[in-house]
């Protein structure tokens, strides 16, 4: 099939009213959580996972994807109007976005970030359509050793790019792998670490784990301190459409943001946050007047806001074509696929073409829906911003409690969720990151299966990973990444605890 017939198929599936509805609900909810500070896309997807289980696989994935890219849109609103990032990937938008709002240009700032997001989002959907099928074709030829080394590479990248200490990130990845071992062994069928509990025979559930780690722990962290009144910018937002001059200034940043964001989204461990940071740094470098950045320059809004949406879209490619999630949200989406007994990866397009093209179609329309939701309806989002956290946080708790209960109608899952909530809270206090844990937890069972199958093929020799070219390349790069901090340490006199303390903390 060629490009156009694919496109035709995508829209055919997507234009069914029920699919349109779930996509709308997805982007609506995504914008909502994007707008609300203290509730990121990861937490939002975790919260909504149980609800999507009642939908068909296509609908559930469309909805979850909508939440993810919708949150990228919504995040900018909070950054611009309140100077608090609605979610992490909008951090840099605060720098110039809020300054623009203070100068009375909140409208164009919101406008350009919505248009930029739209362009970046649409660009990546087109790239997704063009790139995913051939990539999946290559991936079909992969055997267990290749899959093992690619997953290993993915995990390495996530720990390497983690914002905190790499050693601690690796520890969390190791713990995630161990957690993934709980339950019935896939190859021989032995029960492992179930402590005799029937509820654990299928393993620890992904949903209670992520709800705890991202939902409950986030709230616990936020309620430590008394809530301050949010200082919402009190001017009428007028003139959402950027002027001709704005467009001229923003064209370059939007174009560059789309490309950079897309490629960073592809990278394991990358995604929306890094895309927006790099885009901002790049625009500042390229600009003839870098001193204007931070004072309300529209380019500092257009670039990063485009890049974070492009990054969010780009992240779908490795998941849908190779079956490798490259960030934690994709890992959760992958878990959602598997709960519907669908394995994302090279076979997805062959076995479930409706699913793949349904997602692609939904991303086209979803981006248009978001443009409509975010521009004319901006007033509603500003009102929602005013809901105090004191009222919001019990709601998030309640949603987590009922959501985890509803999975199997069991209180056991609720207990698991509360425990992981406490663990996640303590992990934050002790400077351990949750993302590598969840990534490894999702990838663990597959990694183990492929690892053991490889060793079965090679009769126990680890050399199999180095003798096949693709596998050798990925393993070598991963090992280099893992060793590089140690080598750097030998050459450089280090401040105490650098390896342990996060880069952020220094």
């Amino acid at each position: 099939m060629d490009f156009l017939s694919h496109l035709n198929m995508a829209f055919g599936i997507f234009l069914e009213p029920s699919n349109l509805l779930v996509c709308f609900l997805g982007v609506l909810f995504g914008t909502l959580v994007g707008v609300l500070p203290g509730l990121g896309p990861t937490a939002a997807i975790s919260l909504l996972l149980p609800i999507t289980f009642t939908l068909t696989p296509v609908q559930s994935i469309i909805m979850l994807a909508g939440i993810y890219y919708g949150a990228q849109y919504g995040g900018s609103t909070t950054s611009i109007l309140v100077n608090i990032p609605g979610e992490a990937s909008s951090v840099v938008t605060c720098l110039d976005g809020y300054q623009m709002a203070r100068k009375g240009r909140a409208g164009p700032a919101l406008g350009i970030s919505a248009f930029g997001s739209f362009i970046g989002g649409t660009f990546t959907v087109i790239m997704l359509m063009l790139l995913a099928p051939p990539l999946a074709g290559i991936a079909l030829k992969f055997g267990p050793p290749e899959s093992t080394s690619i997953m290993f590479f993915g995990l390495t990248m996530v720990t390497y790019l983690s914002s905190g200490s790499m050693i601690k990130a690796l520890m969390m990845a190791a713990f995630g792998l161990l957690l993934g071992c709980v339950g019935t062994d896939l190859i021989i069928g032995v029960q492992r670490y179930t402590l005799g509990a029937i509820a654990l025979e299928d393993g620890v559930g992904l949903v209670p784990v992520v709800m705890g780690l991202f939902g409950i722990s986030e709230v616990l962290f936020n309620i430590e301190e008394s809530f301050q009144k949010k200082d919402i910018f009190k001017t009428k937002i007028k003139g959402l459409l950027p002027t001709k001059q704005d467009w001229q200034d923003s064209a370059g940043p939007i174009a560059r943001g789309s490309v950079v964001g897309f490629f960073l989204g592809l990278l394991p461990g990358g995604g929306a946050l890094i895309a927006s940071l790099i885009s901002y740094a790049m625009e500042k470098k390229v600009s003839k007047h870098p001193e204007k950045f931070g004072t309300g320059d529209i380019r500092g809004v257009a670039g990063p806001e485009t890049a974070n949406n492009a990054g969010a879209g780009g992240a779908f490619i490795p998941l849908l074509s190779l079956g490798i999630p490259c960030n934690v949200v994709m890992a959760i989406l992958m878990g959602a696929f598997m709960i519907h007994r669908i394995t994302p990866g090279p076979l997805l397009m062959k076995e479930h073409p409706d699913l793949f093209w349904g997602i692609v179609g939904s991303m086209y329309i979803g981006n248009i829906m978001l443009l409509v939701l975010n521009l004319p309806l901006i007033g509603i989002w500003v009102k929602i911003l005013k809901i105090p956290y004191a009222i919001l946080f019990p709601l998030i708790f309640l949603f987590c409690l009922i959501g985890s209960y509803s999975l199997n109608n069991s209180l056991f899952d609720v207990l698991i969720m509360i425990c992981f909530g406490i663990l996640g809270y303590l992990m934050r206090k002790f400077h351990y990151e949750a993302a590598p844990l969840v990534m490894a937890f999702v990838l663990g069972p597959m990694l183990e299966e492929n690892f053991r199958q490889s060793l079965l093929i090679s009769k126990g020799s680890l050399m199999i990973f180095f003798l096949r070219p693709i596998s050798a390349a990925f393993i070598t790069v991963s090992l280099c990444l893992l060793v590089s901090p140690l080598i750097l340490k030998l050459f450089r006199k280090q401040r105490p605890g650098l390896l342990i303390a996060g880069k952020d903390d220094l």
Partner: protein
Amino acid sequence: MKNRELIGSLFWIGVGVIFCTGALKYRLFKSGVPGAGLFPFIGGIILITLSFVVLISSLKTKEEDWRKIFKEKFFPQENSWKRILFALLALFAYWIALEYLGFLLTTFLFMTFLLRFIEPQSWITNFTTTILTTTASYLLFKIGLKVPLPKGILGMWIGG
């Protein structure tokens, strides 16, 4: 902060040891090919080794140096521990009470408690929010998504 690093690394060493001893039971190799225990054993060894690195470097680093790296205290505010404790109590109480008191009553009490004791709201706000959320969540989960939420004693009185 030094203590936090120590406690953290010791905790993860413990976790690693538990998983490793389990793995030995599930056999690392079975007639020459990897058994069910090999993968968790490797994972456990990695976790233990890295935890030791954290442990040793935290012992070597002086407390003053840690203060330079980690500026924050464990709790940012004097009554933080109370707020966290109340929240955890509410969560566990919900978990225990759900089957006995039923969804409606438990949720009502849960919301009232949280809105009262963590960041006190006026009773009017408290009850409006509580009643609205209890009803809305009941409609969404019980009626909309058909989750069989526990009825508890309240349900028995009504006879539902």
